[in-house]
């Protein structure tokens, strides 16, 4: 299984006639089992085609042409028009929106996220490369051309969540080389406010049968790592409480022990350089909580292992998964004996 998307997911590309969007469309159509891109939207370009995908003026036209609700949209329009495009997608029933665009003011992002929450939609990004389910489908530029994406990503048990699009591929490639494939890899975006943080994606991975471990890439700035640490701690408490009351029977996915997580923390040098922004818009040390030292401490307190080097990740996550599964079996045996 996978999270967010699968082979049946239908989506559109908003801003499809832009240079990068044309490439992205080709890549998604070519990758894995081939994405079901059912339309593209660029105002004023009704009737054109991009790699055989029909172009419409409005999302409503795309939905009407498809004749059924459309699952997702990849939004690649310029920053000044992104909020409008996302509102249009949400109001036309689209429930998964990947925003590729960079440099969107955070008030606009917060408005999109709030409307999405009201309508039951989910946003990935902005400033992200999207989602990939290895060998099946990708939604966004993640991994690049189909040939390159196929080289880096392979199917398997690891969920990948990353604040950097490029590092999503670097980490997945390292996992692949070590024989650890990925269930789904999500580039969540590098901005201060994003649609889906680690903690917000964890329940989805937690509920996915195929995913057995999580690898994350993180950076200075923001509270996202602290939120993840809190989620893990709370999930552990929920699981222990449920286990205590259930006589050792395996509970529902949402009540299981949190999946083992290994984090990689980049930008350690930034701790000495408060007020300077590097890499992504959200990457800045403004207070103590933004520093990598503080984040690493919080992650480790929650039982999340933090890798010093990317090449250490496969061994670390393997060990954590083995330990977690050992503990799970032991609990199962204990339960059975009772």
């Amino acid at each position: 299984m996978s999270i967010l998307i699968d082979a049946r997911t239908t989506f559109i590309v908003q801003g499809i006639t832009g240079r990068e969007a044309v490439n992205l469309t080709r890549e998604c159509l070519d990758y894995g089992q081939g994405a079901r891109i059912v339309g593209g939207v660029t105002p004023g370009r009704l009737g054109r085609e991009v790699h055989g995908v029909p172009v419409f003026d409005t999302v409503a036209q795309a939905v009407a042409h498809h004749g059924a609700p459309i699952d997702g949209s990849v939004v690649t329009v310029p920053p000044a028009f992104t909020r409008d495009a996302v509102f249009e997608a949400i109001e036309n029933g689209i429930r998964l929106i990947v925003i590729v665009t960079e440099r969107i003011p955070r008030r606009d992002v917060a408005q999109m996220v709030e409307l999405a929450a009201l309508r039951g939609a989910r946003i990935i990004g902005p400033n992200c490369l999207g989602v990939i389910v290895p060998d099946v489908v990708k939604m966004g530029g993640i991994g690049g051309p189909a040939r390159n994406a196929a080289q880096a990503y392979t199917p398997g048990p690891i969920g990948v969540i990353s604040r950097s699009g490029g590092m999503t591929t670097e980490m997945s490639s390292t996992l692949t080389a070590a024989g650890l494939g990925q269930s789904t890899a999500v580039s969540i975006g590098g901005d201060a406010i994003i649609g889906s943080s680690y903690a917000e994606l964890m329940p989805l991975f937690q509920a996915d049968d195929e995913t057995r471990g999580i690898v994350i890439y993180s950076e200075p700035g923001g509270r996202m790592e602290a939120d993840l640490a809190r989620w893990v701690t709370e999930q552990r408490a929920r699981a222990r409480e449920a286990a205590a009351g259930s006589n050792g029977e395996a509970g529902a996915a949402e009540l299981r022990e949190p999946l083992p997580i290994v984090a990689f923390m980049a930008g350690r040098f930034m701790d000495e350089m408060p007020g300077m922004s590097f890499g992504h818009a959200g990457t800045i040390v403004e207070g103590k909580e933004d520093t990598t030292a503080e984040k690493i401490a919080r992650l480790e307190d929650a039982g999340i292992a933090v890798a010093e080097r990317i090449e250490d990740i496969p061994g670390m996550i393997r060990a954590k998964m083995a330990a977690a599964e050992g503990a799970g079996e032991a609990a199962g045996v204990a339960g059975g004996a009772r």
Partner: protein
Amino acid sequence: MRFFEFEAREIVKRAGIPVTDFGFATDPGQARAIAERIGGPVVVKSQVLSGGRMKAGGVRFADTPAEAEEHARAILELEIGGHMPRGVLIDPRAEVAQEYYAGVTWDGSRKRPVMIFSPVGGIDIEEVAREQPDKVGRRHLSNILPLSDFQAKEVIAATGVSGQELTRLTPIVRRLAELFSRYDMTLAEINPLGRLADGSFVALDAHMEIENEARGRHAALLEELGVGEHETRQAREPTPFEIAGEQVDATDHRGVAGNVTEFDGNLGLVIGAGGGSLTLFDAVRAHGGRPANYCEIGGNPSVAKACGLAKLVLSKPGVERIAVMMSIVSNTRVDIVARGVIKACLELGHDPAEKIAFFRIPGAWEEEGFKILERYGIEYADRSVSLNEAARRAVEKIQGAATGNGASAQAAEARA
């Protein structure tokens, strides 16, 4: 981007929040004229973006215009936290009965603005929150629903403030929240907000920061305040090397080859993309390397841009060699970056094999890129060599080269 106090107070004033009859001066004579207009005791405040003005002697009290002029002269020449002041603010000394705090900022976890109020003002709000948590009111605001007085009223009332204070504070706090969203602020703070003897309120200091990404849509405001289009107001002023980096990035619109930050080492870095650059910079330092710079390549820049960036780094005094390294690329092309950095070496009269300590960019168009690198004898690696290992090799090579250079310098000396 952070506003100076005099700009922030002007923004507060425009939002309909009462401010004192302050003035801004860039020379001592102007300061005196403002003090004369005010006609009473004044405060002379340095206009710098760093904190700790009071401790550094950047805030002084004057009873007469002549004294204000003297203080202004001294403060205008006083560097605080590495910054020279933009000017001085001359403020009437108000008789304040009580100081309050009002602020709005983002809660990145909840993805909403949060309105904060405290009847304990004039000090750091974090400190108040730690020591007197019942004296700090907080409330998240909707990004979509209109703002209303009741939200401000609730935050204020939650701290135990009632009566005329409450009714007078409510519109001030609501207006602050409105300006926060109207101007795409990331922080809008009035601290202290003073209650005068007659019961009226006045903003005595303000701290405002606007989001860089939104500057474009507030061009009119910024122009009226006199904020230059290229003022970054980062923690430190950009160096000429960093400004040159921006110019390289601006040569054409394709991709990124810039975001340069200057350091003082001997290993020039041509690295990318966002996350890869952070990872590589850490790795170079972890292996004892001394980077000459930070930078970012990404989004498929042209040969000219990659070349321009490499030339800039190669020309930086003290740079012995460059390392060209990125995380796996899917959009940027390996061959284009390779051509760019080789061109830079050749145009500066260097042997690329000598100047490029290590090249590690795997991904799109790598076969073509590796072929070019081989032709010039440049040491390179594919994805089987980690970012960390690539950084280690680059550092090892330059440290070897440094002793080598030393030896040849000695040899040259001996010959002379």
